């Protein structure tokens, strides 16, 4: 057990720690549920009441406020004009109600916290409730039905009213109602406190089954904004919101960023890897941009989890309630400098008053490699090699020597000598068909009036698709990732006006990856030639030939050089204190928050592997006359010996030459190495004010926050922000908002340290205007909004660039120290400790400023069945920081160029969103959404050298604009005549038919770097679109989501031809595209002619990376059998889904989406996946 690094994560100490944390978590959760289990609430609760001359309604509501009782009654039960007085002390509800309704014809029934009020005569006939229908009503029909909540529980006390009348009833204890309605009645309205009001067409039906959703999960109403929530209709900033449900269903691997792809209009994600855990040496979490890239400095959005800056990647999706995307200046203003690139707000789930709900979610994922380059087999590849040699012989006679003789070709085909002239499908050898991920999640939530709790525990495991295993070396070198997330959110309402919140969350993760050389393993996976060697010879020796350098046996390299592990431990805590100060002035409250986050990262323990003795048998052995079909084993071995090259493991403590003795793997110490810890202390104080005065609604926010964060032993980073927001709304028609941020950054000298960044926004809800009334049946919502403001950013700017300094190195006695130049003869002696000039200061380093504007239109048609939203936005970024490393100054400076704020970028774009949703009378719901966004930036200034030709300057082009030599035509030159008639490159020695004529852009007669011109698009798409659709009927639901991008091209890099370094690597698309008379690809060729040792001339061959993919498809079914219910299961749902299923694109077959490098032999990312998930979700 100790040997296996996977298990070594579970050291006793750690297990103890985890158990301790789990214990703590459950203590916290159960503390909450204990309070809940007080079942006899109505008897225990004593109420004090002192009310004079108030209406019954007012009295009831004050009882509701001072207790947990909720009154349920039909409006005609209570006479609102009647005034009463009551004065009790420490009485039960029964007593109070009896007192209260003395002399009225009102009866009541108390059921736990719900109190139902009836007209007294109705109580006598509880099942058939009379209503005040006029007796002359001609024709009636009787309808009946049952109302349940989404968990399938019956809802008593739901008000059922015929729309437009006072005709109605409430449901009984079993949620059942019956009602006599006029034949011409059309719509029933179901409403219940805390639930979403629902309208149902009556039509010809007489029996109804209604499910009421909870009002609080209704996204329509409330939008999470910076430091608060706002009613959707009063939002004037550009904000998009997604539910936790949507995110949950889109999870792809451990990195939450991947789940957001296409989920939030305006957010662009670029995902590059399928690596377990998402991040590693050459793999990175999904890149995110909000509304495109507007700076070359860090353009990633700010991510806040429950109001505190935290990384998004390792969040458990089951903890998320909502994700808000804040996009314009007005929405992000309160985040000040950090929000310049947009903000992602993640709100985690919190407990709600009610019974404890325990739920389990289990998902198993089978994943297969999405796309990976296949290669032609040895025979075909070598045949093409011969074609290539034939092609280039006119200029390169010497390559004739490399022609593969026919006999060899036949041997490659027949595979008579699979060890000498092999034909290996490395994809098969190196990868498994399928790998598995597991995801388990458990949540518990609920609450009482005083305590509300939410707790979750989740375990995620990602499997490895590579065939890495313990071949007897004593360890499993594979990639892996395991993560345990936990969260406990507690809200304590200490007094009716005081709330105290404690959040505790975090994760533990461990991952492993092979210790072998990534430069050997990855190129091998993507581009190993089929005819090098078998991975392992029949005598058990692994193949390798260090001489090749480009291709060391990657399977061997990844399996036998140990395994490295790393661990992360993250714990975040929030303490929030909320105090309402209505006694000072109504609507005022203060809030204080303290957060402390701690993330530890450590590598190790690592297992060190030293490789093994490897060999390579030269293929020329097949030409040896001594090689015969039936040789004895020993004869064959003797012959092989003459052609065998033995290789000793390249690096080991002592090179042991022929006396090589295999060193067994050794294990480094258990304790982790290179531990670095991230710590962040954040605190904020805010004052909030919100109040309506008739038609005027006013709100204000003042907030101050500070953050101290540090990683490892670095000097802590300090930050301080003061922000304010004021909003004013008139009659829900005219909205105004002003934000101001006064931000401080320690990165700047005192002259620039604090910056003030104001923004404003206006909104006009046209549909709320009187004159609009006639249009409302068609257009129920029409809103215009405009925002304009400035945001500062100090992202990507190093600290203390305004101060110069000296670097003083300590004296050292170590002989291996890199820091000391040694003098002395005959032996080296210790010299003086070194001193260096540090950064040359620039006192004018300052804020990067973004001036953002956004114009938006929101519409809703036919009661919001169809919604169309459109935003046009534009931004001007000035003072963009250009790092010294990216600047060019005369070399005479003799030092790194000094960083400066000299850049400017303009950006514009739009977002279009369409939502259509409709529920038919028989309960069939179908919806269709489409979002489509465009964003394009343009560099105005980036410090280009003065004499650079305009087409090579950065200014005027997009960030990351590729520059290429381009071809004069789309087809290679066909004949020698064509060759003689074109401008050649710097050398024409190796030009052949099949080459391209490239454009001599500056007409100087030679082709060189000056002829590189802007061409194509950056590797970041300009357009993204995400159509999705779904349907649900009764217990069945299904949906599909697509994600597409266009106006995007691969990274710069010209075609480097087939047979790179003379290896027989031929991809299927090479065969299809290369110019070759033998293959009959001439006038239809895309790529230049085949070459073997020389390279062909060609400019950039356009490679669009536009694609549309079926991002997600799922089908879910709720099992609602009585049997399950009897087991106490309130919900049982099965989901079958798939991610990244189909890709439509013109990309070569090896590329999956956005970003891996074109050149397969330099690709070092983990392949991406197609996923098939089976999930089960249970709630009690």
């Amino acid at each position, binding site marked *: 057990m100790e040997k296996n690094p996977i298990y070594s994560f579970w050291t006793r100490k750690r297990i103890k720690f985890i158990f301790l944390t789990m214990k703590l978590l459950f203590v916290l959760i159960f503390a909450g549920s204990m309070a809940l289990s007080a079942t006899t609430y109505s008897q225990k609760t004593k109420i004090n009441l002192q009310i004079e001359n108030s209406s019954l309604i007012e009295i009831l509501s004050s009882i509701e406020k001072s207790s947990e009782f909720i009154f349920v009654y039909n409006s005609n039960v209570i006479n609102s004009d009647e005034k009463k007085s009551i004065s009790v002390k420490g009485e039960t509800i029964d007593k109070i109600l009896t007192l209260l309704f003395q002399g009225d014809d009102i009866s009541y029934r108390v059921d736990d916290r719900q109190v139902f009020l009836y007209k007294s005569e109705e109580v006598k006939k509880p099942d058939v409730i009379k209503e005040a229908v006029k007796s002359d009503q001609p024709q009636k029909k009787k309808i009946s039905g049952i109302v349940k909540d989404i968990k399938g529980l019956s809802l008593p006390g739901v008000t059922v009213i015929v729309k437009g009348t006072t005709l109605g009833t409430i449901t009984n204890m079993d949620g059942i109602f019956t009602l006599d309605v006029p034949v011409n009645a059309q719509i029933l309205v179901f409403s219940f406190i805390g639930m979403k009001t629902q309208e149902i067409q009556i039509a010809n039906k007489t029996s109804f089954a209604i499910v009421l959703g909870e009002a609080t999960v209704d996204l329509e109403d409330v939008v999470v904004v910076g430091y608060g929530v706002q009613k959707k209709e009063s939002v004037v900033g550009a904000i998009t919101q997604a539910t936790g449900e949507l995110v949950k269903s889109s999870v792809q691997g451990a990195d939450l960023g991947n789940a957001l792809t296409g989920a939030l209009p305006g957010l662009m994600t670029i995902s590059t890897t399928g690596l377990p855990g998402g991040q590693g040496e050459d793999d990175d979490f999904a890149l995110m941009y909000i509304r495109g890239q507007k700076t070359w400095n860090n353009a990633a959005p700010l991510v806040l989890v429950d109001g505190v800056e935290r990384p998004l990647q390792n969040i458990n999706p089951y903890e998320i309630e909502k994700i808000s995307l804040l996009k314009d200046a007005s929405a992000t203003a309160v985040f000040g400098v950090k929000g310049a690139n947009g903000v992602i707000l993640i709100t985690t789930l919190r407990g709600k008053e009610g019974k404890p709900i325990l739920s389990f979610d289990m998902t198993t994922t089978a994943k297969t490699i999405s796309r990976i380059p296949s290669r032609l087999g040895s025979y075909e590849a070598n045949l093409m090699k011969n074609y290539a040699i034939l092609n280039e012989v006119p200029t390169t006679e010497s390559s004739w020597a490399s022609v593969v003789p026919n006999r060899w070709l036949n041997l490659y085909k027949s595979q008579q000598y699979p060890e000498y002239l092999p034909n290996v499908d490395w994809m098969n050898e190196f990868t498994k068909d399928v790998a598995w991920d597991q995801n388990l999640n458990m949540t518990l939530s609920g609450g009482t009036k005083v305590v509300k709790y939410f707790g979750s525990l989740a375990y995620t495991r990602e499997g490895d698709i590579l065939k890495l295993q313990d071949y007897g070396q004593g360890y499993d070198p594979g990639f892996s990732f395991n993560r345990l997330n936990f969260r406990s959110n507690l809200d304590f309402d200490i007094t009716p006006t005081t709330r105290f919140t404690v959040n505790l969350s975090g994760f533990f993760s461990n991952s492993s990856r092979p210790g072998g050389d990534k430069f050997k393993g990855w190129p091998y996976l993507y581009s190993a030639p089929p005819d090098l060697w078998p991975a392992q010879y029949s005598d058990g020796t692994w193949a390798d030939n260090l001489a090749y350098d480009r291709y060391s046996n990657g399977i061997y390299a990844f399996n036998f050089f140990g395994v490295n592990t790393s661990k992360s431990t993250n714990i975040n805590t929030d303490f929030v204190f909320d105090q309402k100060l209505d006694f000072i002035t109504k609507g005022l409250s203060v809030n204080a928050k303290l957060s402390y986050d701690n993330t530890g990262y450590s590598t190790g323990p690592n297992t060190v592997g030293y490789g093994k003795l490897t060999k390579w048998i030269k293929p020329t052995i097949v030409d040896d006359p001594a090689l015969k079909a039936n040789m004895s084993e020993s004869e064959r071995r003797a012959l092989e010996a003459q052609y065998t090259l033995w290789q000793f493991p390249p690096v080991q403590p002592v090179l042991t030459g022929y006396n090589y003795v295999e060193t067994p793997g050794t294990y480094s110490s258990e304790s982790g190495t290179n531990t670095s810890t991230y710590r962040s202390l954040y605190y904020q104080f805010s004052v909030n004010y919100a109040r309506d005065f008739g038609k005027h609604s006013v709100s204000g926010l003042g907030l101050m926050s500070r953050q101290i964060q540090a990683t490892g032993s670095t000097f802590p980073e300090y930050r301080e922000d003061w922000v304010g927001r004021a909003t004013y709304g008139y009659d829900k028609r005219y909205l105004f908002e002003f934000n101001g941020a006064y931000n401080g950054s320690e990165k700047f000298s005192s002259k620039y340290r604090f910056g003030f960044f104001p923004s404003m926004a206006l909104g006009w809800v046209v549909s709320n205007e009187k004159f609009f009334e006639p249009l409302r049946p068609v257009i129920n919502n029409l809103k215009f909004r405009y925002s304009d403001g400035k945001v500062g950013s100090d992202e990507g700017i190093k600290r203390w660039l305004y101060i110069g300094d000296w670097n003083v190195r300590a004296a050292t006695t170590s002989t291996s120290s890199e820091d000391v130049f040694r003098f002395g003869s005959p032996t080296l002696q210790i010299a*003086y400790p070194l001193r260096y*000039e540090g950064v040359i200061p620039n006192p004018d380093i300052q804020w990067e400023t973004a001036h953002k504007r956004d114009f938006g239109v929101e519409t809703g048609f036919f009661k919001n069945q169809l919604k169309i939203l459109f935003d046009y936005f534009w931004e001007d970024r000035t003072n963009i920081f250009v790092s010294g490393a990216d600047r060019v100054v005369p070399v005479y400076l003799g030092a790194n160029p000094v960083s400066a704020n000299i850049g400017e970028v303009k950006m514009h774009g739009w977002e279009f969103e369409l939502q259509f949703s409709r529920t038919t009378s028989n309960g069939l719901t179908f919806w269709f959404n489409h979002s489509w966004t465009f964003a394009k930036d343009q560099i105005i200034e980036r410090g280009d050298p003065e004499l650079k030709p305009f087409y090579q300057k950065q200014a005027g082009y997009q960030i990351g604009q590729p520059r290429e030599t381009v071809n004069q035509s789309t087809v290679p030159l066909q004949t020698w005549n064509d060759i003689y008639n074109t401008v050649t490159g710097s050398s024409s020695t190796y030009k052949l038919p099949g080459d391209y004529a490239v454009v001599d852009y500056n007409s100087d007669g030679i082709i*060189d770097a000056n002829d590189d011109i802007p061409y194509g698009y950056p590797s970041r798409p300009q357009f993204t679109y995400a159509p999705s659709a779904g349907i649900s009927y009764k217990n069945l639901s299904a949906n599909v989501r697509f994600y597409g991008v266009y106006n995007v091209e691969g990274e710069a890099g010209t075609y480097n031809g087939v047979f790179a370094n003379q290896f027989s690597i031929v991809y299927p698309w090479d065969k299809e595209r290369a110019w070759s008379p033998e293959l009959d690809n001439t006038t239809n060729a895309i790529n230049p002619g085949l070459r073997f040792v020389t390279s062909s001339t060609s400019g950039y061959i356009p490679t669009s990376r536009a694609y549309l993919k079926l991002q997600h498809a799922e089908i879910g079914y709720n099992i609602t059998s009585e049997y399950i219910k009897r087991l106490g299961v309130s919900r049982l749902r099965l989901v079958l889904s798939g991610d990244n299923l189909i890709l439509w694109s013109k990309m070569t077959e090896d590329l999956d989406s956005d970003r891996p490098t074109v050149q397969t032999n330099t690709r070092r990312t983990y392949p991406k996946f197609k996923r098939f998930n089976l999930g089960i979700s249970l709630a009690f």
Partner: protein
Amino acid sequence: MKKIRYATILVIGVLLFTACEKFLEKTPDATVSDKDIFGTYTSFQGFVDPNYGEVINYNTMYSTTTMDCGGETINNFITWSPAYTCWTGNYWYLSGQDDYSYNDMTSLFANAKYGYGIYYNVSGGIWTGGWRGIRRCNVALQNLKLLTEATDEERKLIEGQIYFFRAYFHHQIIDAFGGMAYIDTVFAPSDEMKLPRLTYQGTAEKIVKDYDRAIALLPVDWDQTVIGGQRPGANTGRATKGAAMAYKAKLLLYAGSPLMNKYSGNDYIYNVEYCKRAATAGWEMIQLANAGTYSLVPWSNYSDNFYKNDGTMPWTKETIWQRVSRTSGSTDNEFINRQMSFSRMGGRYGEQVNQLFVDKFEMADGTRYQVSYDGDNAKRWNLRDPRFRKNIIVDRDQHGMDSRSIIYLFAGAGTPATDKGTAQQISLPYLMKKYWPVGANGFDKLYTQLRIINPLMRLAEVYLDYAEAVTAAYGPTGMAPGANLTAVDALNKVRVRAGMPPATAAATGYANFMDLVRNERTVEFCFEGHYWYDIRRWYIAHLPENLQCVDLIFDKSWTTFNRSVFKTKVFENPKHYWLPINRNQTLLFPGMYQNPGWQ
């Protein structure tokens, strides 16, 4: 109730009026003052010393780089290496134009990524590291007045080193890139830095002035100074009067050489004036040597100039200047692995020697090698200049104690299998041996105590520089004014040491005596990084005879020997005579114009 109200107002009030500026007024540790750095001798020396790290060890700088750019060697396998690009003519790759700058494969000439190596013992290359060193010198000079806690002698030592390095770095830059502005001020970031390029001789004049200052200030022997006397031997490797004098002579010879003369507004001929000054400077240096400071090591200890395998530093009486070291055995062995040894011997790549270069080694009797000797087993590899087998491995040489260290370089099949063939990256039948001690291989494993160095200036060069300058200025039998050493005598000092018969002014077998001087130089300094500079300097690099790489193909039993052109070098005239300057630099302002042929 009221209390709460007041308390709340108070809290808010405190929040609003808390001074916020101070919270952000934090920087790590107290910053170090200028006086701390430049106040004392020890600290100031610690500021000057990184200059030693910018000195290039021609052959061990970066893994796949040798300075053998003149065509003397090839490794047809490491085609991505900067050295290989000397064959393909893509000098952009050498000088770090932005298209070709890689962090992990840095060129000897320029590491275009500035940030790399500031704090470590990794030079930025001749270009980047040079300019960086020049700034360091200027900063040091600017702060010299702060050096109060030092004796007069110590102040001179510091100042002398500063002038030496400022000259040396400019010198290195202009040899490869051509004349440049001479930078003697510290530029501030906002300064206009648009100084135009000078001619080679224009820059050289300014460099000479700094060398002269260094000569006046630096000691002949650091052990004779007060500070050096405290730890004898501990300052070996520091700049000396001798180093400054030798480089001054070399600079003047370069300035008088055909290529540099042309690029100073004259023609492709020796500039007699500069050669005269070179001869005088050389004679001054020879006099310093004759005083007992330097001497040629005996032939038996010749390899001590290049390696020691006992843990001591290769530093001899002949050594005048070389890169100081911090290296341990393992990194030096890595160098062998990369440049000389091949996989069966425990190495990696192995540079091989061009047959045309091998031909330059004379016969032992002083006659020239003939192609007709190729099939003559007695003459081909034996009866040659002793320096031939000292520097080059041929077929069937055993390079170690272990019998398996016999190296097979024949072509075709045989038992045991030959090392020549693509799988071993050996294309030509000659391997470099100069820096490769016997036994430093995977069988004998004698490399833990290895120290390898590529000397940059040794006394032999002083003699040959003198011989060349005198020949150009006064003829083979002439000498510098006041000297008693003719060009022929100077040449023979080097020649005779290697066991070769003395040459005469008649230079039998050569067109003229200058050709003999040049050949002697080529042989004596083979693989030391001189050849590429020399054939450019002499304006002969573009001639057809210097463009080919020739293979010698023979069978295991040495019955047939055939020459075959293995590779032809791309060398355009005048394009490849100078390295291109980073394009970003030439686009900054017109004064920093590009070298001809590179746009």
